[in-house]
Structures are given as C-alpha cells and as structure tokens.
C-alpha cells in the first residue's frame, strides 16, 4: 500500500507486532472490560470515503472494518479465522475456494447476507467503472480479465450455487489470495442498496459490521452507532465519533483537556508527552510494517547504470535518519520490514562510504557526478524530511539533486507512470502479512505497466521474476522463505532502491481508553477499545 496524505507522522495503515508503552505509573485497567460510552477520535483532514471499494488508506480501512465484514478475518495476531463464513476449504490444487456463510449474518438494514452479495461486491471492485484501487487484488480470479476488458458480463470464476455457498475459482494457485479475502475490498455489500444509490452509496453505507454510519458531515464529523442486526462479537463502545479538521498539535492539546480520546501525533508532540512525567504513559510507539525508500528508475539514465545505483546506496548515511525522525523510525537495511518476522542474512551491505560512492561514479563514467531531480510528496512531512537529508548526502559525492516537492495526488500518478520520475522518495505499507506484498508486488517485472505501476523503479530482472513466481505458487513455508530471500538479495545487488527507514508511529491515548494494543495487520481495532467510566481526568480539573 502506498503512503498518502494521511500518512503524516503518526498516520499509517498497517503496523507492527510490537508495542512499547513508555510506562511509568500506568493505572491498572478495571477488569473486566466495560461496555458503553463514546470513543472520540480526531482527524486532520476528512476521510475520502468509507465505501469499501474506495477506502484504501491508513485511517479509513479500520473504520470500514467497523461498518463492513467479510469472509475471513485475523485473530489478534496474523492468523486467518472465519469471519462471516462458517467454514471454508481450499481444493488440493489451490485453485478453488469454497465458503459456507453463516445464516445469522445481516446487513444494517436487516436483510440477510447472501453469497450473491459477495459475488456482486467482488465484481464491483473489479469493474473499471468503480475505479477501485483494490481491483488488482482480484484479477487472479478466473474470468476476471475478460470481465475487466468488457468481454464478459460476469466473472466466470465467481459462483453462488445457493444462498449460503460461495465458490471462487482462481486461474492459477495464488497463496496470498486468502489474505486478499481478509482485506476491506472483499467485504459483503448489499446489492439492492448499492444498485439503488449507485455512486452515492458512500452516503448511504449499509454493511454487516458491528456499527452503522449515522452521520457524515463532510469536513466536520463522522458518527457511528451500534448495528442492531449484528450478531458477531460486539464492540465495547456504544458509539464512535470522529472530529475532522484537528491537526496533531491541536489534537494533543485537546487530548490533555479530555476532549478527544486518541491522537495520531507527530514526533514533536510525542517527545513533549514523553518528557512530561504525568503524560509519558499516554504515548504508545508502534513500529510499522513499512519501508520508506529512495527509488531509482532503472529505465532512465543515469540510473540505468547499476554502478550509479550502487554509488547512491553507498552515499546515503542511513544511520542519521532515525534521529532526524525524532527517534520514531529504525534504519532499513533491506526491502521487507523486520516487523514482518523477516530476516535475510545474505543481503549485500551498503554502509555509508562516500569515497567508495565517488569511485563507483568514476567507474560509471561520472567523475564529476551529475545533476538530477529528486521528487517527493511535499505534503508528507516524513518523506519531505528524508528528501532534504538525502540531498545533502548526495551533494557530498557530487550528485546535485534538485528537490521537487509534488502534491500527493499528482505524485501518485507520476511515480507510477513509465519514464516520468527518475529519482524519488516513496514508501510502502503492508497490505497483508506476507513478504510477497513487498517483493512480488513491487519488483516482479511481469506486472510492469505504463501507468498505475507499483514498481516505481520499473525494475525487471527475469531471474528475480522466476524466483518470485516459484514462491507465489504455494510451496511450503521454508521454501517460500528461501526463494523470497534469494530474490531480495538479488534485488539489493541490482540496487534499484535505497531502503531508508521503517516508520514508528507515535500514538497518544487518553488514559480512560483501554484495549489499545494495536493489531499487527489492522493497526487499530476500535471495536476492541473500551472506556473506563470511573476515570477522572485530573489534568483537566
């Protein structure tokens, strides 16, 4: 998943496994968890939409998960468990998925969830008219290509033999498809409601999740209340209220005044809280499963020369980056984040060595360095700061990189278009807990397209493609791990990226909120949070 304007300091989609609370006198939580109350959240800018076919950013998807539910879910770790599917099985050849739905699952308008609603939901995401960012996740279904091309009215690989049975036929085995089914793109949507409202469905959302949307005043407020028809494990709070237009500085002050319950802070606010004896345990540090990186377009000179790319790798001093990020980052050595329980001992090392970088540039035919343009998303302070820091390092070895801040919408379109951006700073956050989400999605040359290409380096190495294809076919876990490690090593030798940092999110919670342990994939499970009604906010007195 690409970062967007929501991925400011303290905003990211998916997080890591570990949570460190700077605990100094954290009050004991009442036991058992209490029901009731309203969880008050704050957002700096409005969410684009909570339509599950559209929402694809850090803050939206956990909220979509409150309103909608799908076939599979994660437990409190990274294991998949049945959601609104009673059970499921995968055929021996890995191509056919059969799901039996729960009979008691209902949408918030009271209608029962049927298998046909899933067929409709998947076709809706695949339909080019919906312009869903999730379309690519479903193209492995048999007949999806014909449907997308307009050659077929329905996807032949999606069938609903009866109201409670859904059969999905893949064109070829795809190990990661089970994770796709746990994404918010794969939730059930009521066919009748969507057909009635069309594109205005986002204002009349009806899902089968534990909450329903009761109010959306664009740019002002969102409000969720309990879904009376929901039959799964209930959420603790009665309502979730989101105030829009609260930036991190204002949010931190409102938190102290007990006006909001959670703020995604920037490093300055986080350090301010960490240094205050009374406030330090309000801060949570969440390592993300993400990698921010410097990409070099291998189809554009001078980055078509591997020596230049290695020189850039040697020229960047990554050890400084965590401190420049206020301590809310760890330096990256490889592509796949360690938070994905991933290690690769065979990775080539690129230690900060300006002399070696200059020698490589001489060998590449650039004894005096060269001039280039370094593009980055100007409205993302983390990426902007990385770009300014890297520019200084590159200057030391003779590479004059003019900084080019671009707004988030234009940047996304530019970097994913062929022959447009030679050099830039960007980031990737996990969609699902598998290394293929980084290696196969971002580096398999078979997926290269002229536009909307996730492979911003336009890297294409047939040897790497072969390794990734083998790994994706569904081998045993150790074999997949070995193949992915080989692929990552080869990619780093070809050096289309300089991996920079893995972000750590500073999140501030009011002490009346409990159950804040982040989820390794969902990041926030608001339905698992609960409020202590007896807590008195001494600071606000």
């Amino acid at each position, binding site marked *: 998943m690409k970062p967007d304007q929501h991925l400011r300091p303290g905003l990211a989609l998916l997080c890591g496994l570990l949570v460190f609370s700077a605990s100094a006198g954290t009050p004991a939580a009442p036991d058992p968890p209490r029901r009731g109350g309203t969880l008050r959240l704050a957002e700096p800018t409005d969410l684009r939409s909570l339509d599950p076919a559209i929402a694809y950013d850090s803050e939206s998807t956990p909220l979509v998960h409150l309103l909608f539910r799908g076939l599979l879910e994660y437990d409190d770790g990274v294991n998949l468990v049945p959601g609104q599917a009673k059970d499921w099985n995968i055929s021996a050849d890995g191509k056919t998925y059969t799901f039996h739905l729960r009979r008691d699952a209902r949408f918030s308008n009271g209608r029962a969830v049927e298998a046909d609603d899933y067929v409709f939901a998947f076709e809706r995401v695949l339909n080019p008219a919906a312009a869903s960012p999730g379309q690519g996740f479903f193209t492995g279904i048999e007949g999806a290509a014909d449907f997308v091309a307009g050659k077929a009215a329905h996807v032949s690989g999606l069938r609903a033999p009866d109201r409670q049975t859904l059969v999905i036929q893949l064109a070829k085995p795809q190990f990661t498809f089970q994770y796709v089914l746990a994404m918010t793109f794969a939730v059930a949507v009521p066919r009748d409601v969507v057909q009635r409202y069309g594109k205005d469905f986002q204002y009349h959302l009806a899902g089968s999740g534990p909450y329903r949307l009761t109010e959306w005043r664009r740019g002002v407020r969102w409000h969720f209340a309990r879904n009376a028809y929901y039959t799964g494990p209930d959420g603790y709070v009665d309502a979730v209220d989101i105030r829009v237009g609260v930036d991190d500085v204002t949010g931190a002050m409102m938190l102290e005044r007990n006006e909001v319950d959670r703020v995604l802070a920037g*490093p300055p606010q986080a350090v301010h809280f960490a240094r205050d004896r009374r406030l330090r345990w309000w801060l949570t540090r969440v390592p993300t499963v993400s990698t921010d990186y410097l990409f070099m377009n291998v189809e554009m000179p001078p980055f078509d020369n591997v020596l230049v790319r290695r020189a850039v790798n040697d020229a960047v001093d990554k050890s400084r980056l965590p401190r420049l990020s206020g301590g809310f980052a760890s330096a990256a050595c490889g592509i796949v984040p360690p938070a994905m329980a991933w290690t690769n001992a065979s990775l080539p090392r690129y230690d900060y060595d300006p002399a070696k970088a200059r020698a490589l540039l001489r060998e590449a035919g650039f004894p005096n360095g060269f001039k280039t343009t370094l593009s980055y998303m100007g409205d993302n302070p983390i990426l902007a700061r990385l770009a300014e820091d890297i520019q200084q390092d590159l200057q030391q070895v003779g590479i004059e990189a003019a900084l080019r801040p671009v707004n988030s919408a234009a940047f996304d379109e530019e970097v994913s278009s062929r022959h447009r951006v030679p050099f830039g700073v960007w980031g990737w956050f996990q969609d699902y807990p598998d290394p293929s989400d980084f290696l196969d999605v971002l580096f398999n040359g078979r997926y290269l397209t002229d536009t909307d290409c996730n492979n911003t380096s336009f890297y294409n190495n047939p040897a790497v493609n072969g390794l990734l294809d083998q790994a994706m076919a569904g081998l045993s876990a150790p074999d997949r791990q070995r193949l992915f490690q080989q692929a990552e090593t080869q990619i780093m030798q070809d050096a289309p990226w300089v991996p920079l940092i893995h972000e750590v999110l500073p999140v501030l919670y009011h002490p009346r909120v409990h159950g804040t342990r982040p989820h390794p994939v969902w990041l926030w499970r608001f339905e698992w949070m609960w409020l202590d009604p007896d807590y008195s906010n001494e600071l606000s007195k």
Partner: protein
Amino acid sequence: MDAVAIDIRARETTPAPPAPAPGLAAALWRHRLVRAGGGIVILFTLLALAAPLLTRWHVLHEPIRQDLSGLDADGMPRPPGGAYLLGTDSLGRDVLSRVIYGTRVSLAVGTAAMLTATVIGLAIGLLSGFYGGKLDLGLMRFTDINLSVPAVLLAIAFAGLMDGKTLHLHPAWLHWPFLDVQLKRGIVSIFLIIGLVCWPGMVRVIRAQVLSLKEREFIQASRALGASDARLIFRHLLPNVLPTVIVLAAMTTANTILLEAGLGYLGIGVPPPAPTWGSMIADGQPYFITAPMIVIVPGVAVVLTVLAFNLLGQGLQEVLDPNRTR
C-alpha cells in the same frame, strides 16, 4: 518659420514634479517614518548582503547544512544558546542563519516582484489614462477582472502550474526547442508570479493621475507644439507620476514580501532546502510548543519587514506630496 518654432520649443518647459527636489535627502532624513522604515530596510539589506561573508568568517552557520549536533538526544531542535544563538530547526539547522539567508530570498523576490508589478501597472495606467477611449475601456475592464480575483488565489493557481512540465510556445510540428519553457518553481518563477498578481492596485491610481495631468496646460502646450505621444508620456507624464509610483512601489513591496511568505508557508514558494521565512514558519509549526523560536523568529522578520516597507511608503508619501497632511 523655423526660427520661431525653435524659439518656442526652447521655451517649452516641464513643470517640476511636486516633489521638493532640493533638499530632498534632508527632508527624507527628517521624516521619522522614513527614518524608521528605511532604517529597518537598510539593516535587513545589509544583513542579506553580508550573509555569505558572515558564513565564511564562521559568524553564521551554513543555512542548509544539517547537523546532528543541532539536535538533542531525542532528535528534537536545540533551544537558543551556546553555538546556536536562536536555536535550531527540526533538521538541526541554525535558525539565525536561516532567517538571515531567508532575508535574501524575501528581499530579492519582494523587490523583483515589486519591479515587475510596477512596470506592468505603470504601463497599463499610463496607456489607459493617456489614450482613453476603447483602449482605456478594455484595459480597465481587464484590470477590474484581475482585481476581482484575490491575489493569493491567483498566485496559488499560477504556482500550481509550475510542476516541471515543459510549455511549447510553438506549433508541435516546428520542433523549436528554444521556444520551450520549463515551468518549474524557483526564485524567478515565484517573483514573476507575484509580480503578475500585484499590479492591478497600481493601475487605478496612476490612470487617475494621468487623466488629471493630461488636461494641464504644459501638456496641452507640448501637444500644440507637436510633441509625439511617446515624448508626452516619457518626458512629461512619467516624471510627474513618479513620486506616486515610488510611494506605491514601497507599499507594494510590503505586499509582495507578505505574498512570498504566504506561498512559502503553503509549500508552493521557493523549493527547499532554500531558507524562506514562510517555509520556516510552516516547518516549525508542529514544534510550536517544544521549540517556539523556529516559528517566532521568521514570523518577527516578516512582521518587521512588512511594517518597515509600509512605514517607508507612508513617509515617502508625506515627503513627496507636500499638499497632503497627516
């Protein structure tokens, strides 16, 4: 006939502009608003000019050099004191050095934009007032249209066009690369943008003055003597509107500097890492509680400079227009 004509031409005189030419410098110096405004402007100009020397003599830090010693153990900016008189910013850069180097950008962009706006405003005002008729009608409606759109919004729209794309000022089939202009953000494009949105305010004042001047006897006499339009405009009208233009220019500089800071704050000014006051305020905003000097210092610099140019403009107006009393 010739002799008579020459004789009359010799007596053709241009009345002195209202400004008291002799002793002007003394009059300016005596005026406290000019002294206060001019003093601040001169101080900032001297600082801007001396900044590279001060860096070479190690009085100032490098303004764009990031240094981990400029950050504390938590990676936060250092407070004022020690090696950093006004503290550091979020990347460990010296705030004092950046605000002084920011003066160079602000004054250069502000002055160049003022000159651009003045040339455009003066040209349109003179032509419109002098020729009148349909030209006046067309130019004034064009001015009205420009006045009806807020300058900030227009500047943001223009700045949005500076996205690095190349503008081909020729038909595609000609392949004339010398007519290709790359639209990218930099000092030149920013001062042009600001200059192009700040001229309408000048036009009405200049046009009104030209309308009054062109009915005066000396203009009528020159016209009767056969003076060309160009001569009337450049020899007679321009010197007489100049005092007004100088006052307007000083006040416009305050606006252009403010607009430059505004664009920098919005992230569409001169691109980083060049220090500009606006971008410093924007970068420092999240640190307002932990390191307020990052925001306060460039903020004070903006206020002082804008105030100085406004004081200067007000003072100049009073000195150059003796008929006007406060």
